[in-house]
């Protein structure tokens, strides 16, 4: 079956529907990610951001609609799913590094075993990427010997080394201590500057604003509002978005004048 890929479209989600039993989590959601685009997804806890990312690489099956990568359907249980997944890099909130493998082995496993690339070539690339994120001395360490920030940078390199067409980041700084958040976000910013195609879920609004080409505000499993970062953060249109953005600002009431 010949499917003509729409030029420039990397990922197309159309009318996606996902439910856990009676509980609908994603409802009729459509979204297109174009080559080199950085789309940031924000929204309140439980609105379905993680579920959306997990549906994209079919870690979760769906109840309707479809996801296509370069025109090819991503279907849970289909024969070529492993192949397609190799082109979708995913970075998780809890890193999910293999605890019994060194940093280098963590990175090399999939390119060598799943993609069948040459060990030497992959090793060289892995070391170069590690250097780029400041981890060249950690190649032989085990995950337990790394800080949270170092683990997450390793996980990013692991995803990158697969040469994915698109990278999915799911709240990758949520489990980190505040002082480590920056080092990880800078790596992602660097990737954006290199022109990588990315779908980023984050609660870091400053970062979202800096990195996004397009912001999608998800609420209750639907796209409630979308726009450029300026539009969304400075002039949100919907009440829901305004309310959501307000949760990130703090104001203190004026002090009562002291009475003697």
């Amino acid at each position, binding site marked *: 079956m010949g499917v003509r890929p729409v030029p420039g479209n990397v990922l197309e989600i159309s009318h996606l529907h996902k439910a856990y039993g009676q509980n609908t989590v994603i409802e009729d959601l459509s979204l297109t990610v174009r080559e080199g685009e950085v789309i940031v997804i924000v929204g309140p806890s439980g609105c379905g951001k993680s579920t959306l990312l997990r549906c994209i690489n079919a870690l979760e099956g769906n109840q309707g609609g479809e996801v296509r990568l370069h025109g090819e359907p991503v279907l849970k249980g289909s024969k070529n799913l492993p*192949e397609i*997944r190799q082109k979708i*890099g995913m970075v*998780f909130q809890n890193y999910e590094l293999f605890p019994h493998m060194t940093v280098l082995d963590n990175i090399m496993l*999939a390119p060598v075993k799943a993609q069948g690339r040459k060990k030497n070539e992959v090793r060289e690339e892995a070391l170069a990427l590690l250097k780029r994120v400041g981890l060249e001395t950690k190649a032989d360490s085990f995950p*337990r010997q790394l800080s949270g920030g170092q683990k997450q940078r390793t996980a990013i390199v692991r995803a990158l080394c697969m040469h994915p067409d698109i990278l999915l980041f799911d709240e990758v700084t949520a489990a980190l201590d505040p002082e480590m958040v920056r080092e990880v976000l800078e790596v992602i910013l660097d990737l954006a500057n290199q022109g990588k195609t990315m779908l980023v879920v984050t609660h870091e609004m400053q970062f979202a604003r800096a990195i996004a080409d397009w912001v999608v505000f998800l609420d209750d499993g639907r796209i409630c509002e979308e726009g450029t970062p300026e539009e969304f953060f400075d002039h949100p249109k919907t009440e829901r978005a305004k309310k959501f953005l307000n949760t990130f600002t703090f104001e203190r009431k004026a002090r009562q004048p002291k009475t003697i």
Partner: protein
Amino acid sequence: MFSEMLVKLWENGIIQMGIWETIYMTVLSSMIAYVIGLPLGVILHITDAEGIYPLRWVNRILGLFVNFFRSIPFIILMVAMLPVAKLIVGVSLGNRAMIVMLVIAASPYVARMVESSLKEVNAGVIEAAQSMGANNFQLVWKVLLPEAKPSLIVGSVISMVTILGYSAMASTIGGTGLGQIAISYGHQRFNPDVTWCCVILTVIIVQVIQEVGTWIAHKTDKRYSGGSAVK
């Protein structure tokens, strides 16, 4: 101090032979039990509803089969399986028959041990491997089994000690080993020191298996402090 019998048994090398046979039986049966039990455990794990390749009926039937053998006390299983031993190795007496019994009793046990070790592997890590495009075969060989290795080794120590216990029981049906020496020279001929000697030797063998196994498991466990590749 020692009974004449114990001295005689020692001088004729019967006890030494018993030690060797006990170890030999245990190790050989454990190995065969793992050849059968390891794949069974893997299949039980991956065909589970939550597993990477759910197959409801295969899982059900295999689970029933394993539970069936696990719920029969060894001593009864042994008697019931005598004809099977005869079928497989041609005799229903002696060490060869004993190994058949041990393997039949131990394989389902090993399968459950393996299954529980695999369950300990963090599901997130498996999803990470899936998201990188590992197929099911690679998932089992390159991620599931390597990540479960320390726990599998700990499990194999527990299995071996259990099999050692079985082998002592089994040696009463015409096999050889410390169990048989304890029964026929100690118990039946009223030499309590022979029995005790066998008990102590068995305890020592168990200790050695336990220590060596724990040491290896610790060595392979990179999550905490076992790793030596620290830079």
